[in-house]
């Protein structure tokens, strides 16, 4: 079974929700929509306080290429546009809509065959679709191969290597036709001849479901971070994305299965990205389940629909346990990046004091990129940013393997995040 070098295999903890079918969550009466929910440029609001909006109406957009517009997830009235807390704990400009059911602002019926690549890209961009695996990179940018680069392979990423999360697994079981439809649309947009759906070996039922539907299905070893773009490309094609490069440099486009479904809906129905699948799970949730949640619903409402928090819940995380971010309040909204709401009990959410490096070298062994986290950690403590750049900290994918195996519990990834931000601001200043 193909795989990559390094990585870890933490307890999967997927059992609580992998059998629970996707359920549509109750329609919220109030949604909070941070203006920027994607990597790249922030959006400007297109509506004013007091405006009536329809479900699916575009409410914010930006002129720049690397951006994705925002749509109203419910019909109603814009009641506020102001700085509100987001899941990362920062105040960001947000639009608040109050209302409920109403007519939708989108309609249509097309098929992939009659659309040109340009039309596919346009409908994906207008639908505000971003990578739903969690990175939220605007999808239409990925579907626009840079001039002179030929894309030959489209990889649909159904690995879902992060513990606890099961939404991609459920989507593959319940909506295989749409995944394949979306995959075809992606292949047509980039002009690729080969489509591969990559699934980890711990999801044999999904493999069975997608096999024999006219596209190749590759089974990969269950290993974190198998779902990382660079790891996947290495495992499936043997090609290596160059340092600082993009998958398009080696002729590959990788899209998450959730993104493929969103693309299918956008291309076929003109439906914008206003809802997404979210796993609500962990030892701190009374009834863990998989929900289809409208963007902008607060964590509190989502968790209430899952029976609420248990008495010993200590920590709520947006995203999985490896790459997620702890939230400081439950009044923050679900955004395009929210694949999971994970609540951990006191016992599971223990904190450790960091110790000193004992030079065991375990981090070197697990780093899937082949970096040297031990040296990077030392340099980070000394704030030697230039030295860290020399040791390629910019190539770190922040998967967290090094922090996970470190016996001294050094907060390696946090150090690297700071270094990356520091180097980036420095670059911006130098310009």
């Amino acid at each position: 079974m193909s795989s990559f070098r390094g990585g870890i295999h933490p307890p999967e903890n997927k059992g609580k929700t992998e059998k629970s079918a996707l359920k549509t969550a109750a329609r919220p009466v109030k949604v909070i929509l941070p203006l920027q929910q994607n990597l790249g440029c922030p959006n400007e609001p297109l509506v004013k306080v007091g405006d009536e909006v329809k479900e699916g109406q575009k409410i914010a957009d930006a002129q720049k290429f690397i951006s994705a517009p925002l749509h109203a997830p419910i019909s109603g009235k814009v009641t506020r546009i102001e700085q509100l807390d987001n899941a990362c704990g920062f105040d960001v400009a947000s639009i608040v809509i109050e209302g409920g059911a109403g007519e939708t602002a989108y309609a249509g019926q097309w098929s992939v065959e009659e659309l040109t690549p340009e039309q596919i890209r346009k409908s994906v961009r207008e639908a505000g679709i971003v990578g739903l695996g969690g990175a939220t990179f605007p999808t239409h940018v990925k579907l626009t191969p840079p001039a002179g680069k030929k894309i030959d392979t489209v990889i649909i990423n159904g690995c879902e290597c992060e513990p606890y999360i099961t939404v991609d697994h459920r989507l593959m079981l319940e909506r295989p036709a749409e995944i394949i439809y979306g995959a075809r649309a992606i292949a047509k947009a980039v002009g690729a001849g080969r489509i591969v759906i990559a699934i980890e070996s711990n999801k044999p039922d999904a493999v069975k479901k997608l096999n024999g539907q006219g596209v190749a299905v590759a089974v990969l070893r269950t290993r974190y971070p198998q779902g990382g773009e660079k790891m996947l490309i290495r495992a499936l094609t043997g090609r290596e994305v160059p340092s600082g490069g993009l998958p398009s440099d080696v002729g590959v486009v990788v899209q998450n299965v959730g993104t493929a479904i969103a693309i299918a809906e956008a291309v076929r129905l003109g439906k914008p990205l206003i809802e997404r699948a979210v796993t609500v799970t962990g030892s701190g949730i009374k009834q863990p389940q998989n929900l289809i949640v409208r963007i902008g619903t607060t964590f509190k409402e989502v968790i209430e629909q899952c029976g609420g928090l248990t008495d010993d819940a200590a920590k709520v995380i947006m995203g999985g346990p490896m790459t997620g971010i702890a939230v400081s309040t439950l009044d923050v909204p679900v955004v395009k990046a929210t694949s999971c709401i994970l609540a951990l009990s006191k016992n599971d959410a223990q904190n450790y004091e960091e110790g000193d490096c004992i030079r065991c070298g375990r981090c070197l062994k697990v780093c899937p990129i082949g970096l040297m986290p031990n040296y990077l950690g030392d340099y980070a403590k000394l704030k030697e940013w230039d030295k860290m750049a020399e040791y390629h900290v910019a190539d770190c994918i922040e998967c967290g393997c090094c922090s996970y195996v470190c016996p001294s519990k050094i907060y390696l990834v946090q150090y690297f995040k700071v270094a990356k931000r520091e180097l980036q601001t420095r670059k911006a200043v130098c310009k």
Partner: protein
Amino acid sequence: MILTSIIVLGALGFVFAALLALAADYFAVAVDPRVSAIIAIVPGANCGACGAGGCHDFAERVAKGEIAVSGCVVGGAEVAKKIAEIMGTAGFTVHKRVAAVHCGADNGQRWRKANYYGVKSCKNADLVASGGLMCSYGCLGYGDCFCVCAFDAIKMVNGLPQIDPEKCTACGKCVTACPRAIISLRPYDFPVRVACSSHDGPAATRKNCPVGCIACKICEKTVPDVFKVVDNLAVIDYTKTGVDCGPAIVKCPTKCILQGGKNEQK
């Protein structure tokens, strides 16, 4: 035998010494005497606060006229005067500056919305949920500024940096070390500072901090020459020297206008 070798080696030694002496004279590089004179004066900390790559580079660039004679921030007025004498330019004044902390909330007044367990450094804490603080502008309290100060001018008192105006050389290292930019360089002679950096509205500031500027404009009314509220924060016009700011300190309802400059306390 021994005698021969002593004579031969001795003779060789003389010949090479003579050659070296000639070469040293012939290949000598003319050094600006002012450069070595300036190097003898500057503190030699190689802190880089002047913008040059160390004290030697500073001396060379001063001699070339690229950096002003008052460029050495650590040396201050005294060194500047001596350098001016060397360079033959005199008759100017140097305004001493010191670092000022624009936050007044110590550990007890810093209200929290979450617990932070990560790396104990301001730069790291600032990455996640404002380090758990309600205020997204104020001091995080892990002492990044304290760690970079090479002159022992910063003390952490109850989680808040306290500047010793006599030791501070205004090298500016703490200014760049602070991820929230709450430290700035201000005139030594100016007796007040605004101990808040929050641009939040009055209601939000009230919710976040007991000693934050709530933009009530009382300072603006009390001492109109100096204070002005801009974007929900009191701003001092440092060019207006000689005005008595005492009433503003007394009247500020949240006590966020404090003694500053050489009178800095808390």
